[in-house]
């Protein structure tokens, strides 16, 4: 099935949306691309709806696979299921509205969600104190949001695509990262050192819940009052819930605000307080510390991959090439500091 551009598909899209919204008529007054990611496309849609539960103006975002992209993450129907699970769990997300799995309209599946306002840019949030409202309140709310996500537990018939929950998520993740590094053919003794530390100090497996997988500053949207939506659900997996806390608090995701350990926006204690207000289980700080080490390895592997991608032709993105060049040595040095000899349980002199 050949992908069809959205502009060409306006009429059939209106027909689909009209039916989904139980309207007598639906007209798209605005239809334009929001961003052209390598894997997904997001389109802004404004609709005028006549009759039915959505009568009036409807502000939407349509998400579909990009025309050229070969997706290796979640499919759009899977992403929709995750968004719906989160919405039902009370997480602040853009409300998922309608999924179209047929290929008749765009030549590829898509879903539509209600549009939320604000910005997700991490650097802007860090620099602009007018964004995000009270930062301590924002950190507490993010903690509560995360705790709600972690209340989603296996088994879930609507999330079968997530596979069997892992017996040992920590060790699995370290092995996965090791394999990724091997596939790149990039020997890196510093990362090996950190991965070996992780292998020897992985926490004993405990709870497994839904983990967002990319819960960090830059992946949630804020306006001047506070949080408007948690985004980027394509890395969700069954895992150790503390992995999300580690990713959120890791030094590499503080955007230079190292002393603000909760994602560069507030003290860690605020974020933890919010989490524990909502969570049925207390935070295991040692476990979070372990996952912060893993977070640095994961980001280093991603940065190396991004740099490599520009070497093999394809997108000649300066941004990605610089990411691949600048971040790894910094992450390696931070990893070595986090796994200094004194931190090894059987340290050798």
């Amino acid at each position, binding site marked *: 099935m050949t992908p069809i551009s959205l502009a060409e598909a306006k009429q059939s899209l209106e027909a689909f949306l009209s039916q989904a919204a139980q309207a007598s008529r639906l007209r798209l007054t605005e239809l334009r691309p929001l961003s052209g990611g390598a894997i997904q496309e997001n389109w802004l849609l404004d609709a005028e709806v006549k009759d039915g539960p959505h009568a009036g103006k409807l502000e939407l975002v349509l998400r579909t696979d990009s025309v050229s992209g070969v997706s290796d993450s979640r499919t759009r129907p899977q992403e929709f299921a995750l968004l719906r699970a989160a919405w039902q769990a009370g997480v602040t997300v853009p409300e998922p509205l309608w999924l179209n799995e047929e290929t008749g309209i765009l030549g590829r599946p898509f879903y539509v969600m209600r549009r939320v306002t604000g910005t997700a840019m991490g650097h802007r949030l860090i620099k602009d104190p007018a964004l995000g409202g009270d930062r301590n309140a924002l950190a507490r709310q993010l903690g509560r949001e995360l705790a709600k996500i972690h209340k989603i537990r296996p088994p879930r018939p609507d999330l079968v695509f997530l596979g069997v929950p892992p017996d040992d998520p920590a060790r699995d993740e370290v092995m996965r990262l090791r394999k990724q590094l091997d596939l790149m053919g990039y020997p890196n003794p510093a990362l090996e050192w950190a991965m*070996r530390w992780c292998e020897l100090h992985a926490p004993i497996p405990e709870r497994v819940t839904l983990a967002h997988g990319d819960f960090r500053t830059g992946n949630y949207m804020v306006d001047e009052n506070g949080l408007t939506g948690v985004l980027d659900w394509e890395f969700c997996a069954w895992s150790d819930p503390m992995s999300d806390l580690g990713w959120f608090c890791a030094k590499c995701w503080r955007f230079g605000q190292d002393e603000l350990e909760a994602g560069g926006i507030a003290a860690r204690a605020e974020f933890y307080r919010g989490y524990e207000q909502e969570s049925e289980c207390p935070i295991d700080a040692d476990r979070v510390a372990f996952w912060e080490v893993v977070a640095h390895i994961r980001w280093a592997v991603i940065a190396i991959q991004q740099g490599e991608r520009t070497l093999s032709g394809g997108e000649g993105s*300066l941004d990605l090439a610089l990411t691949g060049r*600048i971040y790894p040595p910094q992450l390696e*040095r931070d990893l070595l500091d986090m796994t200094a*000899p004194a931190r090894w349980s059987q*340290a050798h002199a």
Partner: protein
Amino acid sequence: MRDKTDGAHLLKLARQALLEQVLGEVRDDKRYLLRLIANALAIAERELLAGQGPSKLERAVLEDLVEDFVEESEILGASETSDEALQRLRWRLAAEIRAGHHDGKAKVHAGLRRIANAHLAIVNPAAVKASDN
């Protein structure tokens, strides 16, 4: 002796011109890209000035850390380039660490930090801690 207008010098001037004369003239949405370009030029300049220094340091540290190191150029002959030699040493130490031969060893840790700092000095010198110099 180096020509006074060598590559590193040209990169430095190019970067200065970009930041002082071009940056203010471009649209807001292109400023980020200009800063990336300026950063790329700065890295290339430092890399040129550092020459073989960081590679030599890394190689010396790795030769000191891998187990039972013998001058392998004797075995491999002169066919191996210095890049290949460096890569081979990285593979060896990486494999030894993975196999658990260096768990928690202070000497290995210190060597790896020196290497990371040498690379960091090229890409982000401000991030090399004062205590590491």
